[in-house]
């Protein structure tokens, strides 16, 4: 049964539907594999075999019937409140049926565990969490990415074939990139979001899938969207590239891998590459940070900040207090920048079908020192990563990250594609074309922790 766990999401679902795999045995195998591999990863922070068994017993004949999945600690479950990777949240949480939970349940999926995450969703590395750091399956001394650290590490290590994360400033795409997965940040409002503690307030956060390849990502996206995302042709793709910090202040390995991937995508689709201009990208990044910070503090009373849980990290304590000092005028200005960027993007997407640039400027940094060396100097990974991710959250457009290579240290490198509002399907089609042109080389590469078991099996 361990071999079935190494199949992708579609193949597991098909094997169960075809009677080749018993879903009860698959669930047991997933739980056993979590027990075996998770100690080195800290990807899954809680399992609940009885609840998982109940989900399986009640699973309808949906597209994921009997398939084990992991869900991020950002979503409530009927038997568990989310902790958001933190000792304390500014907003009370309670157990309940979140949108992603309902979508998974109604598709017949079996939630087998809760995935670790960066504390309060406030980091791109996954090295800070109330549960302890999650580890990257490609190198357990490296960051798995955040904030959806556990979901990504779970899929990369083949504990499960699919996981649900959330993306407010790149939190699906960073861990997808660091862990060699495909991750989609859907168009704002398109994926299930109910039950999230910030759902009534946020204008940036979306739920999103993390899977080994595009086909699996399409399937899990269809479940989260509540509609089938059909396959199309990304023929004659007009690919926009930006000659700016986001694509140029990257390591040589990242730059070369992404340039090669863009050229491969162009050739595969018979398309063309066009240079586009997106001025004020830095301002857009800051605007997204200011807006998400102000939204996250809505309803927070100053006295709450004098009674913070002592188990919150010093970074979280200081950052929460600092957010109270951010000037309202800057947030108002951020909204104007948002409007300006949305209009600019709408014009850009008249000229190109997708915008391509690296998801991350450097591969996964060390857990104990998440810094990256770039042509412009040494930066924290958070500082460097966010500038390539924030635009999609600020404006609402969809974005996908996919693996396009491995570094000399055998760490994944990733390309990000962005499309106009509602055109998530085109992103999947384009990513699938690139995946096909690459002979599925990168999506089928396995981290050492998963390779060892596959060889044994």
């Amino acid at each position: 049964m361990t071999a079935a766990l190494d199949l992708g999401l579609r193949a597991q679902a098909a094997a169960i539907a075809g009677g080749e795999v018993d879903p009860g045995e698959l669930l047991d195998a997933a739980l056993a594999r979590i027990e075996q591999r998770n100690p080195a990863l800290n990807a899954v922070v809680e399992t609940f075999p009885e609840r998982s068994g109940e989900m399986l017993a009640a699973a309808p004949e949906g597209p994921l019937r009997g398939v084990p999945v992991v869900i991020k600690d950002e979503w409530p479950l009927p038997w568990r409140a989310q902790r958001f990777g933190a000792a304390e949240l500014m907003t009370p949480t309670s157990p309940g049926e979140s949108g992603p939970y309902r979508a998974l349940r109604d598709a017949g999926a079996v939630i087998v565990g809760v995935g670790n995450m960066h504390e309060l969703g406030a980091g791109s590395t996954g090295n800070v969490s109330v549960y302890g750091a999650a580890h990257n399956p490609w190198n357990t001394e490296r960051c798995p990415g955040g904030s959806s650290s556990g979901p990504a590490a779970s899929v990369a290590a083949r504990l499960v074939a699919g996981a649900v994360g959330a993306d407010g400033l790149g939190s699906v795409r960073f861990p997808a990139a660091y862990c060699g997965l495909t991750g989609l940040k859907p168009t704002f409002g398109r994926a299930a979001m109910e039950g999230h503690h910030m759902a009534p307030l946020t204008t940036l956060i979306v739920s999103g899938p993390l899977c080994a390849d595009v086909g699996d990502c399409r399937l899990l996206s269809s479940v989260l969207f509540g509609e089938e995302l059909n396959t199309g042709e990304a023929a004659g793709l007009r690919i926009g590239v930006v000659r700016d910090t986001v694509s140029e202040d990257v390591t040589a390995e990242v730059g070369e891998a992404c340039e090669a991937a863009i050229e491969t995508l162009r050739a595969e689709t018979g398309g063309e590459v066009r240079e586009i201009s997106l001025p004020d990208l830095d301002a857009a990044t800051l605007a997204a940070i200011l807006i998400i910070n102000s939204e996250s503090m809505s309803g927070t009373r100053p006295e709450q900040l004098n009674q913070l849980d002592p188990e919150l990290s010093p970074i979280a304590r200081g950052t929460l207090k600092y957010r109270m000092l951010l000037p309202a005028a800057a947030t108002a200005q951020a909204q104007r920048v948002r409007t300006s960027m949305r209009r600019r993007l709408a014009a850009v997407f008249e000229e190109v079908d997708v915008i391509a640039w690296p998801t991350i400027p450097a591969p996964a940094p060390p857990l104990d020192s998440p810094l990256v060396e770039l042509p412009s100097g040494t930066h924290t990974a958070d500082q460097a990563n966010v500038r390539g991710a924030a635009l999609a959250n600020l404006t609402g457009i969809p974005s996908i990250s996919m693996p396009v290579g491995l570094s000399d240290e055998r760490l994944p490198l990733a390309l990000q594609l962005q499309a106009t509002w509602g055109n998530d399907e085109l992103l999947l089609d384009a990513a699938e074309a690139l995946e096909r042109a690459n002979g599925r080389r990168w999506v089928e590469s396995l981290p050492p922790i998963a390779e060892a078991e596959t060889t044994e099996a």
Partner: protein
Amino acid sequence: MTEGKAQADEFIPAGLASLGIEADEVDLAVMGAVHGLLWPPILELLALDTEDVEPERCPDLSRAPE
């Protein structure tokens, strides 16, 4: 002492005091670091000329702007 550090040393304690928020040395050190990263770009953001940007009323983030 750098100008930014000096600004943080004044701005942060004063801002916290005005809100009645307590902070220990570790909190202040974290806030000082965050301030050093965020404040210069905030000043640049505030200096951007956005007078010509007509605000979107109740923007629908799931769609292109009208």
